[in-house]
């Protein structure tokens, strides 16, 4: 669905590359997580996958970028946004501001595309139901909590029915409750067949929701693989992303020979319950 080969990019008027030689392959219908420290190039990669680079930011882009069968750099932004949706960090900045109710806010993108009124009303109803925001429809988008605003922002992208949805740190400005709301929506989306690329650094939550994870560090993709394997990699500390306490505890236990060397390190609580079951047995024995 998404195929990047040997992509490098530098912003205009800079003397360094923000991304170098990036390869990425995302199959259709998969939920992919991309982790990286602040400034590693996450937002830049999100913009490349969604077509804003090079169509809006300009700069020096090389390599091949194909999303949903479209060669993005050679296409236009209008075409790109009909194939890839983008959810950004700040819920506040995503609200169009042009609409005074959530209902109209959801329809904003469809109005711009000239979708018929009946069709819009149907889709608004469907999306609101899917995300569980029916009760918010007649409220002002500015009178919502951060988490609710982000759900509205996600809903207003899903309603455009793009086959790919990119989320650039959708929970970084949310409280734990709001973060939970957004990740719950991600699991609902996983079943809808949409290809989802989530840029995040909440390692534990990604472990629960993403199937594959890629790591960006020093302007490159430095590790890729199944979520648990990549997210328990001790090098995450070096890349300033950090591992979870479960990973660190298990690694320590391994070091002290309390766990067998071959143990697959846990990332989430669920993983570690499994791992330390063995640990308990070991202690008894």
């Amino acid at each position, binding site marked *: 669905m998404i195929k990047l080969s040997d992509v490098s990019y530098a912003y205009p008027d800079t003397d360094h590359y923000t991304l170098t030689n990036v390869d990425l392959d995302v199959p259709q219908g998969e939920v992919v997580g991309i982790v990286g420290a602040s400034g590693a190039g996450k937002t830049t990669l999100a913009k490349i996958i969604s077509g804003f680079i090079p169509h809006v*930011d300009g700069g020096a882009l090389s390599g091949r970028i194909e999303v949903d069968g479209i060669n993005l750099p050679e296409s236009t932004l209008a075409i790109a946004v009909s194939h890839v949706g983008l959810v950004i960090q700040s819920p506040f900045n995503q609200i169009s501001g042009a609409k005074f109710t959530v209902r109209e806010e959801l329809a904003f993108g469809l109005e711009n595309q000239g979708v018929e009124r009946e069709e819009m009303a149907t889709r608004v109803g469907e999306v609101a139901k899917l995300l569980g925001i029916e009760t918010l429809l007649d409220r002002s988008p500015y009178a919502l909590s951060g988490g609710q605003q982000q759900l509205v922002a996600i809903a207003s992208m899903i309603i455009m029915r793009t086959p790919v949805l990119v989320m650039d740190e959708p929970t970084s400005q949310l409280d734990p409750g709001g973060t939970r709301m957004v990740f719950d929506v991600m699991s609902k989306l996983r079943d809808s067949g949409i290809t989802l690329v989530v840029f995040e650094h909440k390692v534990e939550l990604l472990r629960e929701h993403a199937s594959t994870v890629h790591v960006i560090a020093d302007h490159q993709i*430095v*590790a890729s693989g199944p979520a648990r394997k990549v997210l328990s990699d001790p090098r995450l500390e070096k890349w300033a992303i950090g591992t979870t306490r479960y990973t660190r505890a298990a690694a320590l236990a391994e070091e002290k020979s309390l766990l067998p060397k071959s143990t697959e390190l846990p990332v989430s609580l669920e993983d570690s319950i499994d791992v330390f079951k063995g640990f308990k047995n070991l202690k008894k024995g």
Partner: protein
Amino acid sequence: MSSTAVPADSKKVRNRIFIALGTIIIIATYLYLVVGQPTDIAKSSFSQAGLIAIAGYVIGAILLAVGAIHRLPTATVAMVPVAIALNIVVGQLVSVIGIPVYLDSIGTILVSALAGPAAGVVTGILTNVIWGLTLSPIALPYAVVQVVIGVMAGYAARIGVFRLFYLAPIAGAITGLVCAIVSAPISAFVFGGATGGGTGAIVGAFQAMGQSLLGATTLQGLMSDPLDKAITFTIVVLILAALPSRFRNRFPFVREYHVFGRKNQALPTLPAPAQKTADAVAADVADATDKK
């Protein structure tokens, strides 16, 4: 910053006609009211000067805004509400603090400097429309003054005024001069010189010294506008200097006219395409980090 919609040629022609017509109507209105001033205007309220001042300026401003808005790409359109909010919030804040200037066009001038005169004109006019719709209807007839600010600040940016710190107040003072001249007929013929306590007293003083109504409002404007705009332009230069250059250089207008001077930075050559697996690269990076 490319716009997705490329307007057809016929629309371009239509927009040019709107802009030209708007400009002509505004200038004609001023000339009619000032140069061709019928003698009875000064003598009584029984004339259509007020209608001509409002209608000429408002129609001219609307034509300019309609002609200009189609040129604006989405990134500029997204900036305009922020600039208008800045105009209004700071304008209100200043009036609360009690500084004897307005400072209600910082946003307009910022937009003009970053996105050109057309964007400044739209920002300016809509500032007064929105101010009129929310806090004070008095602002509405003065929308044309903001056109002057937008256009003059935009061309000032084009000739490089914002490259040198000390040029900005000069450009501001000149802009203020034109603002004072253009706004005088509105103050005189629509509001009878009474737009506020302080300004009203000054108008009265000039009239008592033998000035005509229009002469008095013009002189009153000249006392405050050039100073206000000189300060505002200076503030804008400071803000622009504080904005990240990556943000400023996103604007095609800034790049085309080198609003902040020329900069040429060469990129280093790109490393050879990686022929390894991601994990191998990871090992390299880990090594490199270790050596640090």
